[in-house]
């Protein structure tokens, strides 16, 4: 599926672009060709949007992880500028404006040059926006990988707080290993990369505090019951 998408978008886009260019060169005689080319190009860009959305979904968590890693490693976080915040609305906006002006232009006929050329301008801006988005995303991913390896080599405090782990020794033996394993897995795999050491440690302490109660309560109840029975034994 990914391979099909990889080849379909550029091929269909090129066909649309060639038709549009041909229509522009031929001028008034082939205005319908020009508009059809522009329409194909717009549809192609519309079909790129779900792919872009999938990228955007994991873009923000990636950026947060990146910011955290930049803080830890001392690397400047300059390239994560506000442009991205405006990029998605810009792409959707230009796509919508292009489609609207093209449809209106096709409806009114070839004489409305303003609408036709406006549509092409918006289309061009939209292509640039999509290009920036995709290249920026790849760049962020590669930088993130480099920083993660750098952070790893600096031996970041990736293990949970020792005192909290010591308190977990109070947990009954049959649950202890699995409980500590679960907490450590969530701490290392999810909390630490996403929220950093401080927040992850707070989370770990909080989990220990709320987890130990129910497990100890069972033991206390059992102890009280045994003591009560012991007193009743003649």
């Amino acid at each position, binding site marked *: 599926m990914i391979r099909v998408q990889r080849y379909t978008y550029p091929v269909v886009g090129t066909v649309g672009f060639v038709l549009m260019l041909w229509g522009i060169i031929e001028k008034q005689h082939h205005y319908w060709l020009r508009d059809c080319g522009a329409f194909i190009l717009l549809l192609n860009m519309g079909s790129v949007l779900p792919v872009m959305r999938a990228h955007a979904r994991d873009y923000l968590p990636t950026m947060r992880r990146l910011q955290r890693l930049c803080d830890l490693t001392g690397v400047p976080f300059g390239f994560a500028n506000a442009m991205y915040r405006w990029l998605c609305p810009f792409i959707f906006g230009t796509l919508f404006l292009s489609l609207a002006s093209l449809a209106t232009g096709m409806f009114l006929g070839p004489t409305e040059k303003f609408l036709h050329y406006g549509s092409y301008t918006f289309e061009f801006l939209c292509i640039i926006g999509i290009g920036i988005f995709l290249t920026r995303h790849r760049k962020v991913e590669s930088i993130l990988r480099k920083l993660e390896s750098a952070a790893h080599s600096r031996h970041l405090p990736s293990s949970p707080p020792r005192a909290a782990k010591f308190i977990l020794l109070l947990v009954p033996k049959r649950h202890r290993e699995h*409980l500590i394993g679960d907490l*450590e*897995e969530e701490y290392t795999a999810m909390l630490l990369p996403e929220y950093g050491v401080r927040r992850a440690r707070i989370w770990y302490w909080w989990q220990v505090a709320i*987890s130990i109660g129910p497990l100890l309560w*069972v033991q206390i109840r059992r102890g009280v019951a045994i003591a009560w029975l012991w007193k009743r034994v003649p």
Partner: protein
Amino acid sequence: MRIHQEIETRAERRCSYGALYTTLDRLEQKGYVSSRIGESTPERGGRAKKFFKIDSAGKAALRQSYGATRRMAQGIEPQWGGAS
């Protein structure tokens, strides 16, 4: 970890690991679920994972409980409709 995540996602409420293990332990004692020890992984600090599986008695109990809840809800819904 997966059961914990599922509960938090589906029920939209916090659930502590302690409460979860206590409940699963109780269900296991009643014979509703069975557990097995899995392999240890480096993310877990070399500790083993525990997998739980629902048994036939557990399925029957769940079906009965779900049926009771559904029948109760059927009685409640018209009351809500009347009240609003």
